[in-house]
């Protein structure tokens, strides 16, 4: 069986499952952010007093934090009240950062477990071998009530990655290359497994970029097989009571791809879809107004480090706004300690508090008509980051930093 099949079999109390079979799985972790407000309203409507297990529910604020309107402030207030009433102790309020960074940092993303989140990028946690997927708010109300959810056992795709990245090319370029190849629906309903020497050699943060963006080709879940690196990260972050699950050698895949990263350059997803991918060098000269480094995709320490290395002792081009958003408080503190934030601020960057920032068009750096942003985030849909007449290009932290310096889209390899 594949990893997805094995985890679903175990979570549904079966010895084995087959693809396309519908199973009811026990949920290990149920995560929500601001939309917990919609969840709790639906939950109360069901007419049950208490959630099934307050210790398995994780709630935090990241999408509109701190509150940008009175309406959001009231949302936060209702959720805080509910959390207190229900005795939900895994509540991080708005001080910790983005859910997809905070949960691993606090030992909630565990190999072999089933996690659902009311956020599409919940696939991120598959970097730890978690069967992790996004669901809607009403469905989450059902999970809060019953602790279970139905799943169709997905087909699996295997992506075997070999070779060494050339300078300034990273996981973001690889996954954009893959999404460009497979398309926005290329992995719809499927489980995607990343394997091979390049993946084994990657940091945890880089693996999270792959599983995070797998959502943008429709994946239900994405996995990197847990190894020593995973186990030591999980243990260092107080993760316990988990059992590693790996695909069997005779597991069946509907598709297998072999990718050699040696020849992949810096890639950019052009407006207005994530599968509209081109090499960065083909876009040379495209004027930018804003450059954004952050998000659940690329707001981690290694992302800030490469941006700081590129911008060290230099200045962002006149007229370009550089926004820097550490993914979490921990990342923020470490980036301060390492001097990355000082470098980025000296270069002209504006550091915002950990959170989703303008990625989903909520607040903190929205775009005017005609403006162009190059961003390390994960979606460039029309109107996503403000005006429907603005343009968002998605790229790696290196490409974004280099472009901020030039004022136009520029491959980081350009001296």
């Amino acid at each position, binding site marked *: 069986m594949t990893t997805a099949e094995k985890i679903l079999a175990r979570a549904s109390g079966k010895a084995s499952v087959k693809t396309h079979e519908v199973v009811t799985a026990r949920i290990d972790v149920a995560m929500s952010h601001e939309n917990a407000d919609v969840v709790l309203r639906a939950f109360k409507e069901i007419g049950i007093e208490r959630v099934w297990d307050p210790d398995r529910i994780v709630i935090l604020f990241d999408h509109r934090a701190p509150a940008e309107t009175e309406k959001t402030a009231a949302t936060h207030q209702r959720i805080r009240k509910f959390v207190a009433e229900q005795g939900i102790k895994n509540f991080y309020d708005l001080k910790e950062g983005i859910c997809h960074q905070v949960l691993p940092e606090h030992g909630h993303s565990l190999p072999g477990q089933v996690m659902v989140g009311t956020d599409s990028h919940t696939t991120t946690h598959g970097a730890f071998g978690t069967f992790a997927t996004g669901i809607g708010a009403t469905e989450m109300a059902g999970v809060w009530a019953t602790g279970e959810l139905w799943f169709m056992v997905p087909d699996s795709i295997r992506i075997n990655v070999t070779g060494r990245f050339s300078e300034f090319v990273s996981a973001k370029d690889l996954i954009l290359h893959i999404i460009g190849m497979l398309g926005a629906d290329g992995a719809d309903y499927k489980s995607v497994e990343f394997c091979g020497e390049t993946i084994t050699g990657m940091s945890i943060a880089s693996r999270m970029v792959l599983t995070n963006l797998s959502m943008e080709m429709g994946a239900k879940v994405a996995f990197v097989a847990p190894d020593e690196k995973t186990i030591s990260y999980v243990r260092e972050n107080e993760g316990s009571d988990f059992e590693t699950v790996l695909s069997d050698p005779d597991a069946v895949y509907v598709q297998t791809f072999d990718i050699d990263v040696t020849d992949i350059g810096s890639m950019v997803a052009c407006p207005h879809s994530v599968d509209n991918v081109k090499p960065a060098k083909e876009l040379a000269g495209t004027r930018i107004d804003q450059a954004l480094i952050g998000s659940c995709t690329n707001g981690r320490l290694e992302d800030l480090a490469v941006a700081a290395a590129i911008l060290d002792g230099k200045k962002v081009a006149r007229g370009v706004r550089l926004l820097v958003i550490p993914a979490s408080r921990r990342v923020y503190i470490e980036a301060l300690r390492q001097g990355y934030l000082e470098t980025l601020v000296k270069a002209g960057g504006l550091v915002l508090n950990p959170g989703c920032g303008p990625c989903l068009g909520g607040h903190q750096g929205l775009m005017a008509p005609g403006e162009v942003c190059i961003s390390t985030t994960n979606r460039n849909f029309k*109107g996503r980051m403000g005006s429907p007449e603005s343009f968002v290009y998605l790229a790696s932290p290196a490409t974004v930093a280099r472009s901020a310096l030039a004022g136009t889209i520029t491959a980081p390899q350009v001296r």
Partner: protein
Amino acid sequence: METIKGRVYKFGNDINTDVIYPGKYLSITTDREEMAKHCFEAVYPEFLKDGQPGDIIVAGKNFGCGSSREQAATCLIYFGIRAIVAESFARIFYRNAINLGLPVAVAPGVWGMFEHGDVIEIDLENGQVKNERTGVTAECPKLPDFVLGILGDGGLIAHLKKQLRKD
């Protein structure tokens, strides 16, 4: 479930949830009129003029891709969309629609079968869609009984309430 019938409003491929319900309105979650007013407003503003309550959306592949925001399904319900038939759906939107009681059907070939304004008939129980004008039909794989049960009860919350009463 009875046969669902309505006027066709067509959309293309990869219609994402930011386009259906922009992020800037996410803090609006209960105001029916207000939410209905923003469906597709930024990219397909003509929908708000030409779309009518009772319409059935016929779309290409990967309808509802992107965010897990349930408001994308809710706003369509509040607008009065009766059902959605597509070549394929993105999975979170598909589940959200069912959980909110909005009928959805996957019918390969459906996009080419209809013109804007045609009348579509959907028979979820028997897994078939039909163009009333041309008489052409397409199959839509039948939903599992428990999913039909959720839809039949008007969504997951009503379904769970009913189950609780039984227990």
